[in-house]
């Protein structure tokens, strides 16, 4: 069934239509929430909040074709809201199991992902939100700016900053550690 029809049915209170409508997006909503919040439990809370709002306010959605973008905006706002409330809570990182890497040297690919992940951890939620929207949702930067309610220039600068931080982090972290001298001469 077309998305438009599902939106219309769900907005009239059809639970099954709502489930079918959000099902294709759930994994990516969860991914974005975990990237921004870096806490699986909070990410679940954010997705739940997103679905509650989506269900409640669906009858107010004027253009059914905008459902996907609307859902993306809801989850981003829910994440940033939770991040603000979380304040100084220690981060609990739970990553998706890393499956077979994309070709090439498996060890190297795994290391790449770990370095990127470590770099993301050092960014604040606002910067991670830009990365998530741009790379996980595939939004062009003007749409990222509109979703976050920030000027386009700010979105560009946040993405630039995020990428720069990742480059620095990856470059620094991927250098081999200096050999210890305390163990005496190498064999």
């Amino acid at each position, binding site marked *: 069934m077309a998305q438009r029809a599902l939106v219309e049915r769900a*907005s009239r*209170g059809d*639970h099954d239509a*709502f*489930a079918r409508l*959000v*099902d294709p997006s*759930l*994994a*990516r909503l*969860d*991914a*974005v929430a975990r*990237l921004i919040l870096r806490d699986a*439990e*909070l990410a*679940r*809370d954010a*997705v*739940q909040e997103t*679905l*509650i709002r*989506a*269900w*409640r*306010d*669906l*009858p*107010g959605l*004027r253009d059914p074709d905008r459902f996907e973008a609307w859902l993306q905006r809801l989850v981003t706002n829910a994440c940033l809201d939770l991040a603000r*409330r*979380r*304040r*100084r*809570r*220690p981060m609990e990182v739970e*990553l*998706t*199991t*890393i*499956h077979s*890497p*994309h070709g090439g040297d498996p060890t*190297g690919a795994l*290391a*790449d*992902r770990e*370095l*990127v*992940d470590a770099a993301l951890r050092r960014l604040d939620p606002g910067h991670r939100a830009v*990365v998530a929207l741009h*790379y*996980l949702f*595939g939004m062009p930067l003007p749409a990222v700016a509109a979703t976050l309610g920030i000027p386009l220039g700010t979105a560009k600068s946040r993405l630039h900053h995020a*990428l720069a931080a*990742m*480059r620095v982090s*990856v*470059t620094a972290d*991927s250098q081999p550690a200096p050999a210890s001298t305390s163990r005496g001469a190498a064999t």
Partner: protein
Amino acid sequence: MSTTRIDRELPAILDDLYLGPSPDYRDEVLAVAVRRRQRPSWTFPGRWLPMLDVAVRPVTTTRPLIRPLAVALLILVLLLAALAFAGSRPRLPEPFGPARNGLITWALDGDIYVGDPATGSVRRAVAGDDIDRNPVFSRDGTHLAFLRQVPNQTGKFDLVVTDDAGAGARSLTPVPVQLPEAVEWAPDGRSLLVNDQNARLLRFSLDGSAPAVLLENAHLQPDAFRPPHGDEILYARTDDLGALYVMKADGSEPRELFGPRTAPCACALAGPARWSPDGRTVAFSVNPDGLQQRLFVVGADGEGLRQVADAEGVWAENDPAWSPDSERLAFNRWERSGAGDWAVRPIGIANVRGGSIRPVGMSPAAEGAIIEWAPDGESILSLPGTLVEAFTWSPNANGTVARPVVIDVATGGSRLLDWSVGSIASWQRLGS
């Protein structure tokens, strides 16, 4: 990895890192979402005011007579919509009496949780570094109040209020409270009473006005505000143990409701007292013979003291909890054996007009149960009594973590909820 590779491969790397199959909580979050009421489409102005279209369409001149008519019609439509919207909003429950069941709230490991006993779903409502405990819903179900430990100040707590979802936390205590022992919402939801360690009765208002000390040397009773308007408060005095008092909500005109000196029996107050939800009666336990504790009720004017039910044997009956319709009392029971031991028995339910006591549910812990009636009166939430003993001493009440039991009042059957609860719990009341 080269920096150009980062830019090129980042989408795939992020997919690998974060994108998995549909999350395992899918069914639960969907069920929680669709239980909410949808907003009618006409309550969204954008659905019937074509604002965007108006903004981009060229302005056309209308004839002078039509324009005022159109404006008047629009105003009329807006008025009708506003009236209809006000009428369609969920009604808040009355502060006392039967209501629709909402969520249950509790604390665990310093965070506040809410759960739906119908589906078993659970959500963390308030998280953070702070140690929060003992949440209580306001009587209209729209707010939560809980205690927040002040960092590095042993025994000091702030009283924090949020909306029913745990958002918008704000402290009502300009100066922290020392080891609060009880927190009670006023029926109108505009203030709370707190009993501190020094037996002072403090009132904190949501409007930000200065806290007031209502009374000293007082022990606030559970459900202390007299229904339906909360114009009287039920308390006991530290310097007159065994008696029960009532005063006006502003702390004036204290009077003795029950006491050993005036009681028609050689007996004294032996446990917490509660107003019935209709405000006509108070239930409490007395020790009629120095050995037993039996459940009694007395009228709001102090007259008509009588025992609720007289079970054969030697019993300790305590912790009465009124059904929302004021017809029944649920309470803890211990039976004394021939050897002199007190053995806990299942929660008893008695009709306040008389009749036998009906045991319901499985036997609680040896300390008895914390009994919380469901707002609709059809079930009872039971938690181990140990959870209340350390109201503020530790995040999980001296390490106790319990699974709550929901008891069906009609059948007496028990259902164990798969939740970890580390505090007292409170059941949200909803309107029709």
